[in-house]
Each structure stands twice: as C-alpha cells, then as structure tokens.
C-alpha cells in the first residue's frame, strides 16, 4: 500500500475523531477506552507515514481500522435510547460462559428488520492488541462487543429471543467450537466405525455427508463459511439458545423462515433445526447431541443444560410485572411471555375484568411492556441492594 493511501485512511479517521473527541460516557470503562484511543491517535499524528516500509504501513492500516471500528462502537453507545434491559439479560447469560470483566457491551439500533447479531470484530484478534501495546504502550484490558438489533424491534422482547442464538455465535467464535465439531464429525464419518443409528442420525442433520466425496472434500477444504461449518454453527446456536429460552426461538424461527424445508448454504432446514432443539429439550437419547455436549464441555468446561428457571406466575394476565427473584428467572420471563402470546388472550380479559376486545397490537404492547418492566425492576432492585450494602 502506498503511504498516500494510508494518509487517506488516517485523514478519514481524524475527521471522524474530531466529532467524537468530546463524547461523553456515563460508563467509566467506556471513558477509559476512549482515552486510550486518544493516546494512539495522538501518537499516529506524530508519525511520518512516508518514511515507512511496507510492513510498517500494513501495521498502521490494521491499527487505524481497529480505531475506526472502536469509534463506531463507542459512538453508537452514546445514543440515549439504549435497550439496557436486553443487554442486562444477555450479559447474565454470557457470565455462564465467560468472565464479564473482559467485555464492554454496546448496542446499535439498525434499520434492518432481521438485523440481530453480535459484532465480534474487535473481540477475537489478540494480535492487534499486542501490536498496539508494542508500538504505543497502550493496553486494552477490556474489549468492545456490539449487539445489533433492529430499531423497529428494539422493544420487542418476543423477537429479541433471537439474540440468545446470536450470543451462541459469539461463544462459538470465542472457543472455536464449530471448528472442533467439524473435524470430529468428519473423522467419525470417515472412520466407518459408527453404528448404524449413529450414522443415520448424522446423515439426517447433515444429509450431504452420506456421500463420501463431500466428506473427503470437506476434510481437505475447511473454510469458516462453507456449508458444513455453517450448519454445525447454526445447530450449536439453536442448542445454546434453548438452554435459556427453551423452544421460543423455534417459534420465531417458524415465523421468519416460513418453515424452510430445504437446507441452504448458510442454514440447515427449519424442520431439522426445530427437531434438534426438541430432541435436546425432551432429553431424547441422541448420539449427535451427546457429541455436541461432550465437545462443548471439553473446550469450555461448561455443561450444556437448561439454564433458565421458569416463571410460575399469572402476573401478566393480571397486567402487572413479575417479581423476578434470581437471574435465571430473567430468561424464564421470555418463555412466560411467549406462552401468554400463544395462549388464549381471553385469559387476560377475564383475569383483569377487561370489558372490551383486546386487539393483537394491544396484547403485543402489554406483553412487551410488562417483560421490560419486570427486567427493569430486577435491575433496579439489585443495584439498590448492592448500593445499600456497600
């Protein structure tokens, strides 16, 4: 890359930084992160790109890209409409798998109805952090991760169950779970040592493995986004999510995929995905799910099991929030919300003596409001109790 192009990239960053320089954050950790960006940018301003060789130019290119991404994440976090309730619940789930101290979670509300995702760009490349430390003496002890959700659905807690699936992708990338499952399953299939029912189960969820040619090709051509890798990851994420929200994401899956009967390059068929989760939830003996569980445990030391506590309540039908007692019930709240949505809404009418017909949009508002308030109340009480103790 020519130095002039690097100068172009840096000018773009400086322009963005001139607007972001005086950002205000209520979160001290974001302030500290921002200060570190300032130190690096200030150091870059003193450098003469024209004097750099190719290696040094490439280094700066990656570092400036890192700074851009960091700014993008931090800028999104200064908006005043953060859906902190959903962030809190996902953070609680994340704690089961990872130390929460490593991350600063930010959110971005985007104009894409299907735009649920975790942006991991700054999470899993340790090299860039090491390079920054070597060049500028700046150490980032926390990394930014961004949760993307659709602006129009930011208060839709029934839809936001999808984010548990997305959290699964985050955990997958952190521990490279798909990569290991990929190798292990192909080795099992190629070994010829599988019992008939084990083989049939694998071929059911991965139909193309019944032909040895794809098996051999897949062994030699690992790629993070080949169809087999994608499918393994999707099954993992569905399994991951179901630990917290049972089959709620299956409900939403049916809605967004219209029960897609064939697999695509990116996703298994919807019936297979639903079946995979149901087998897990029912505890039906399954060779493949056991493989997943064993591999996940060996890597993460965390068991794949139900991690939610169901909420035994009729509060929503009585138009009041649920009093959540422990964090596991936060996940159970979504299951309760979905059960009420799928149930007969006359229960709400009769329980609350409502004298007029409840439209679906009214029930939708009521449920989302009450889920939000239930989570918000738990957060407030927890923070209040902690403050009183300290």
């Amino acid at each position: 890359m020519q130095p002039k192009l690097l100068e172009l990239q840096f000018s773009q960053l400086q322009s963005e930084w001139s607007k972001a320089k005086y950002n205000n954050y209520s979160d001290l950790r974001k302030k500290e992160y921002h200060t570190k960006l300032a130190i690096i940018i200030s150091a870059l301003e003193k450098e003469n790109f024209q004097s750099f060789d190719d290696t040094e130019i490439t280094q700066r290119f990656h570092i400036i890209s890192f700074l851009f991404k960091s700014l993008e994440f931090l800028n999104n976090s200064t908006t005043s409409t953060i859906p902190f309730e959903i962030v809190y619940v996902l953070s609680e789930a994340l704690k089961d798998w990872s130390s929460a101290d490593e991350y600063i979670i930010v959110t971005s509300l985007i104009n894409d109805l299907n735009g649920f995702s975790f942006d991991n760009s700054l999470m899993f490349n340790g090299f860039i952090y090491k390079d920054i430390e070597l060049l500028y003496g700046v150490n980032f002890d926390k990394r930014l991760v961004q949760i993307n959700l659709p602006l129009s659905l930011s208060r839709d807690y029934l839809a936001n169950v999808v984010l548990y699936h997305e959290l699964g992708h985050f955990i997958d990338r952190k521990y490279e779970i798909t990569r290991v499952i990929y190798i292990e399953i192909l080795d099992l299939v190629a070994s010829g040592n599988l019992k008939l029912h084990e083989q049939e189960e694998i071929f059911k969820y991965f139909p193309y493995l019944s032909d040895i040619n794809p098996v051999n090709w897949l062994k030699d051509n690992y790629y993070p986004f080949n169809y087999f890798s994608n499918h393994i990851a999707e099954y993992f994420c569905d399994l991951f999510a179901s630990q917290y929200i049972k089959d709620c994401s299956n409900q939403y899956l049916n809605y967004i995929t219209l029960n897609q009967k064939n697999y695509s390059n990116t996703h298994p068929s919807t019936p297979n995905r639903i079946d995979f989760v149901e087998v897990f939830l029912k505890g039906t003996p399954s060779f493949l799910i056991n493989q997943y569980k064993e591999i996940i445990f060996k890597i993460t030391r965390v068991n794949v099991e139900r991690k939610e506590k169901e909420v035994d309540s009729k509060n929503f039908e009585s138009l009041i929030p649920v009093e959540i007692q422990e964090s596991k019930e936060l996940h159970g709240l979504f299951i309760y919300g979905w059960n009420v949505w799928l149930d007969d809404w006359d229960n709400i009418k009769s329980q609350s003596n409502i004298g007029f017909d409840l439209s679906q949009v009214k029930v939708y508002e009521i449920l989302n409001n009450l889920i939000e308030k239930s989570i918000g109340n738990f957060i407030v009480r927890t923070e209040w109790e902690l403050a009183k103790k300290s």
Partner: protein
Amino acid sequence: MLYSHNLEDEKINLFTLFLTKAIQGEESYSPIVNDVILETHKYVAGEKNLYNINRDSMNIILLLAGLENDFFKNLIDNPENYNKETYSKVLDLLKQTKPQMAY
C-alpha cells in the same frame, strides 16, 4: 460489495507481519510468534489437542500443522531456540498457502 473483510485473513496478515518483524531483528515481536510456533509444535507432538490449544490463534496453528507437520514436530520445546531461520521457514510456509487456505 467491493470487498469483504474477514477476521481470519486479518489474523494471518498480522502474524505474517510479526514474523517479518522478528526476522528483521525486532526482538519485541519474537515472544508473540514464539507462542504460536510453540503451540503448533505441542499440537503436532501430541502434547496439546484440539480442545486446549490457544483459541485465538487456533486456525493459524491448524493451518501450519497441516502445511508441514514434521517441521513443527521436530522443533525443540524451548522457544529460546527459535531464531530467524525458524521464522523464515514459517513465513515461507505461509506464503505457499493456497488462496482458499488463507481464510
């Protein structure tokens, strides 16, 4: 779209860059590349496995192990013995990778 950014490409690019720096004599980069080379050695020697190799550099480790297993197997278990020759060899291996392997 004009270009699609891939995290794994970036990791390999940076690792290649660090190797170059180490070869050029910048010793501060040696520990970073030594860690990956040592981890690859331990993997091919059977001291580590898919479940406990470093997750961040896992794909690079598996890539290198697949390229020249014997070289990494025969490496000494002490990174202090790794030198410019070692780094140059690893760099050459990476340069030979097929485009789709450099994911």
